[in-house]
């Protein structure tokens, strides 16, 4: 069983659109949407029969008004400015701002009146669903919730279990943008990383950082340049720079309105009528698949 992740560094390069197409070109795979902050894959794959699970991670401090003595110790000791006092004067009511609370437990420990409880925090939901192409594991991170890296790790684990149960041979992961916690969680331990970029200075800049990341974690990476004809000169520059980092470019996809049309129709690009672009994406996938063997 192999795991492949598609990331981009810069957002808006077409990562999710291409992930959907790649998935639909396989017949024995599990799909995972690890962009849990702003998941979009389900808009193309239209999941159904979803089994929902609550996602608990870490804890949150809650002040019991009946026990609180308004000594102000929690507010002094909190490093995250998460304790509110309303109105902000002596005698004001103390409460914890859930969007700022880091879940460190220091206020809980030091409250002289033991007025602060520390329940588990509900950070969102994750789902295992059916799609027209097999199982999909996806999630929705709660508003303001942290630990999206942990949620990413969790759904990857569930995807592995699902793949084992159903004898799938491939897990395809739609990764998040950026290079931080959730991206790291989506790519560690995978067999192959596909980077989707665009030929702009921003894309080039972000690609450099992504390449450092994949190198840092020692995972083989391959490149796809989307909207290549917006700037052919930059496209070549990026391909050469990638090569210097031992990263091969698998293909170039031209800027094409079919990406939007497909999305509007709830389809992947490869489900649209045959065209050069569709053929292009198919051949890129064939190359990716050959690297997995």
């Amino acid at each position, binding site marked *: 069983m192999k795991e492949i992740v598609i990331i981009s560094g810069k957002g808006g390069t077409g990562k999710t659109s291409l992930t959907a197409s790649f998935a639909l070109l396989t017949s024995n795979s599990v799909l995972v949407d690890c962009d849990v902050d702003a998941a979009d894959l389900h808009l193309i794959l239209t999941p159904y029969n979803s089994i929902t699970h609550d996602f*608990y*991670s*870490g804890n949150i401090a809650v002040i019991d008004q009946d026990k609180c003595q308004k000594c102000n110790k929690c507010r002094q000791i909190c490093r995250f400015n998460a304790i509110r006092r309303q109105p902000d004067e002596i005698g004001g009511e103390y409460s914890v701002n859930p969007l700022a609370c880091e879940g460190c437990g220091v206020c809980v420990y030091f409250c002289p009146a033991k007025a602060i409880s520390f329940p588990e925090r509900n950070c969102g939901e994750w789902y295992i669903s059916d799609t027209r192409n097999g199982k999909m594991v996806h999630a929705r991170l709660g508003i303001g919730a942290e*630990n999206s*890296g*942990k949620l990413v*790790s969790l759904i*990857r*684990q569930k995807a592995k279990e699902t793949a084992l149960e159903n004898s799938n041979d491939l897990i395809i992961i739609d990764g998040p943008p950026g290079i931080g*916690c959730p991206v*790291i*969680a989506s790519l*560690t*331990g995978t067999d192959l990383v596909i980077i989707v970029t665009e030929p702009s200075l921003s894309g080039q800049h972000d690609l450099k950082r992504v390449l450092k990341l994949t190198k840092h*974690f*020692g995972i083989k990476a391959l490149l796809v340049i989307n909207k290549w004809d917006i700037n052919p000169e930059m496209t070549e520059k990026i391909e050469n720079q990638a090569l210097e980092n031992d990263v091969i470019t698998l293909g170039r996809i031209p800027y094409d309105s079919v990406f939007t049309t497909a999305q509007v129709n709830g389809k992947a690009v490869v489900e649209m009528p045959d065209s050069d672009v569709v053929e292009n994406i198919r051949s890129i996938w064939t190359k990716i698949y050959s690297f997995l063997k």
Partner: protein
Amino acid sequence: MKIAITAYGESLADAVDSRFGRASKFMVYDLDKDTFEIVNNSQNLNAPQGAGIQAAQNVADLGVEAVITGHCGPKAFSVLKAAGIIVYNTEAKTIQEAIQLFKEGKLTNTGSPDVDAHWV
């Protein structure tokens, strides 16, 4: 002498769990008496981070001299090392097999973690 093996199930016929930090259970096997007990590691499945570290701490409290697992990352490894516990890696399919290989001295301990640091 007692050893701990990361376990997918509760019997010797079950598979070795390939991961250390997120293993659901440990089988603590007493080599002198040929008996074993199962210790749960499930609190780690909910740990936001540092599951390997926590698992290593739990194992250190069990009084074992060695750990047999599929893969162990650097942080968990350093905790086990500090506690004087030796880590053995195995590709054995079942726990029974892994223990047998251990008894025969056929398992390798490379003295270092065998996977890179990971954010899981």
